[in-house]
């Protein structure tokens, strides 16, 4: 598949990055989601496991991008899934479970990020200087450098711009869905997204 995997050691944790776009849409291997949700509401641990398996990747990815910190992202992902899957009665089935889950993930991640960024002056200085353990150090070092640049650039955005960008670029949400997750109107989500991308032009295209 030609996947080039490398690790970026964070200040407090590890986030693995792969150098190809992987669609994070949940897989439907375990059957229809509605059925899984109904079983999970009844306490079926098999269904709960299946829902974790199905949504963990996307939840941890959105948390990692919102937070820029591996350990915090894991905490946020766990809090999100534990809270959501043990509180399924609060989920209204006419809405999208995925959007509901992403809203919980964002709500879990954003306050953690705010606290952490206040605590650390340089929030997103991931250790691009760490020793490379891959057999192709040159390309990995370049990739790590790029990952660090992206992370710092995202950290420089306003919160709603970053959220709109992350949810749309990496998770394929429409402007309307971004508005559902983040709050506010669809128009505001659109504006935040375009302003965010515009603000990323300079740090991401000029610095290279």
């Amino acid at each position, binding site marked *: 598949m030609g996947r080039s*995997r490398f690790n970026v050691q964070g200040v407090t*944790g*590890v*986030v*693995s*990055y*792969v*150098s*190809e*776009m*992987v669609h994070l849409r949940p897989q439907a291997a375990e059957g229809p989601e509605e059925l899984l949700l109904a079983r999970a509401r009844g*306490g079926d*641990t098999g269904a*709960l*496991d299946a829902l*974790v*398996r199905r949504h*963990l*990747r996307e939840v*941890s*990815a959105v948390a*990692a*991008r919102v937070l820029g910190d*591996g350990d915090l992202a*894991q905490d946020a*992902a*766990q809090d999100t*899934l*534990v809270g959501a*899957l*043990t509180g399924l009665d609060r989920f209204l089935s006419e809405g999208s479970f995925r959007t509901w889950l992403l809203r919980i993930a964002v709500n879990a991640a954003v306050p953690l990020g705010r606290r952490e960024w206040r605590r650390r002056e340089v929030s997103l200085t991931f250790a691009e200087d760490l020793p490379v353990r891959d057999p192709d150090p040159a390309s990995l070092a370049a990739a790590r450098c*790029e*990952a660090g640049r*992206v992370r710092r650039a995202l950290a420089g955005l306003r919160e709603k711009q970053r959220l709109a*960008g992350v949810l*749309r*670029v*990496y998770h*394929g949400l429409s402007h309307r869905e971004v508005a559902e997750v983040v709050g506010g109107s669809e128009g505001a989500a*659109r504006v935040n997204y*375009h302003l965010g*991308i*515009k603000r*990323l*032009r300079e740090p*991401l*295209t000029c610095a290279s």
Partner: protein
Amino acid sequence: MRLLSCETVRDELLAMRDGRLHSSEQRAVAAHLEVCAECRADADVLALLRRQTVAVPPGLEARVKEAVRRRADRPRRALSRALATAAATAVVLFGGILLLRHRSGDPVLGDPEGAATTAGLLQPVADLPEPGGLLAGGLQLDDLSTEELQLLLTELD
């Protein structure tokens, strides 16, 4: 080929990257990018962002599953504990009521004979009051002399 506005193109850049545009739309967006440096810069930004993907850290799935199971199990355990506590409280209350009723001589649960039986078991016979005994030591009036009786009456007066 129709001309597209920058706004339209920027909204379609992700769809183009994901191959979700019809070929005519794709050609129109590509033509716009040829001549518009700002939209091209946005396309470059998106390409760079899309190269960064996140994998689930090893062990996280197992940890989350365990945490979900533990939390999901908590209400059931709490219910069991509440039922056990309620049962224990009921036993203690019932026992207390039984004890109070026996001490006051009330029949218990429609078993009039049982009260006397239980009271007998709970209280030693030697401690019960002497029905006819007026004086300490269990002396009877018949045991007293005339003088002692007069003295007792004087004291009672």
